[in-house]
């Protein structure tokens, strides 16, 4: 069979989701952000919530998220996305409100907003991209940076006596009564991508059903910041990041 006989609209099994528009993404080649954007677009499309979804964009690499997914977005100040999401959800309880944040946003400058929004049990979903580094500003150390990991501000590796210990946000939030679903996923293999999609779907359903705060942490790569190729950084993530940030559900009071 000729290849042109296979490439026909009736044989299409996978394509870019409709909500992910044609704008060229500014992310570095191989960045996990692109995969997560794609998953969010797919989930919103499958749930039929494109007119009801409000995303809260962070400050960080994903600051231009509103350029890529065709839903309503609000751009929050650095770290304040959960606070903005709180307002949006309380005023529009019938809408799907989610925040999309990196580790510099959610677990550094925005720790206060994150913890208090989760503790109040706001009916929002938080998507947390954890790559252990400040990607946008040039690879500085973040609270989530692993011990011994080299960044531009810890060129000899992070030292616990000087820089403190890596901060694992998900177990912290899982202790709070306000959270209903806390999970940690990754998007480095096709299987992991499908699991992450299911997690995002459940978080969005929890938000729509008013069950409390959901956190989906995606352990990601930052190949530019880590100074590796995308394939190498996926491998490095599996070997190093997963030790400190093991994958799986941490809390699920829904099922």
């Amino acid at each position, binding site marked *: 069979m000729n290849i042109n006989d*296979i*490439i026909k609209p009736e*044989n299409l099994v996978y394509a870019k989701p409709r909500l992910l528009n044609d704008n060229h993404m500014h992310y570095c*080649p191989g*960045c996990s952000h*692109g995969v997560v954007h794609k998953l969010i677009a797919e989930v919103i499309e499958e749930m039929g919530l494109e007119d009801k979804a409000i995303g809260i964009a962070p400050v960080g690499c994903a600051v231009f998220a509103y350029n890529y997914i065709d839903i309503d977005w609000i751009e929050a100040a650095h770290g304040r996305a959960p606070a903005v999401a709180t307002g949006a959800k309380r005023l529009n309880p019938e809408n799907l409100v989610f925040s999309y944040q990196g580790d510099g946003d959610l677990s550094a400058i925005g720790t206060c907003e994150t913890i208090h929004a989760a503790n109040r049990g706001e009916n929002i979903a938080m998507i947390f991209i954890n790559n252990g580094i400040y990607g946008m500003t040039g690879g500085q150390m973040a609270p989530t940076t692993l011990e011994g990991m080299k960044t531009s501000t810890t060129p000899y590796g992070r030292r616990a006596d000087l820089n403190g210990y890596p901060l694992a946000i998900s177990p912290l939030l899982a202790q709070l009564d306000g959270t209903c679903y806390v999970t940690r996923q990754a998007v480095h293999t*096709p299987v992991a*991508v*499908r699991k992450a999609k299911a997690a995002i779907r459940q978080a969005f359903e929890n938000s729509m059903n008013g069950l409390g705060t959901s956190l989906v942490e995606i352990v990601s790569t930052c190949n530019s910041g880590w100074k590796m190729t995308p394939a190498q950084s996926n491998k490095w993530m599996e070997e190093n990041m997963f030790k400190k940030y093991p994958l799986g559900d941490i809390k699920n009071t829904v099922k």
Partner: protein
Amino acid sequence: MAKILGAVTVNKERCKGCDLCVVACPKDVLQLQPKEVNNRGYHFAFMKNPKACIGCAACATVCPDGCIEVYRVKVND
């Protein structure tokens, strides 16, 4: 026996040549262009070995830029 044939198309202007699809492909179908580049200067992916494709969509699933479309057809010998 029924056989599954697959094919992918790569949006070459959107592709950033990150190589993740090449690594994810279980059948070693894809490769990055060794010399040719797109308008942004990236070595985009293409089907080096189209006959081996089974249309599993592993490449498209991991593609960060959503530039791969997957087609699959079942044929009887």
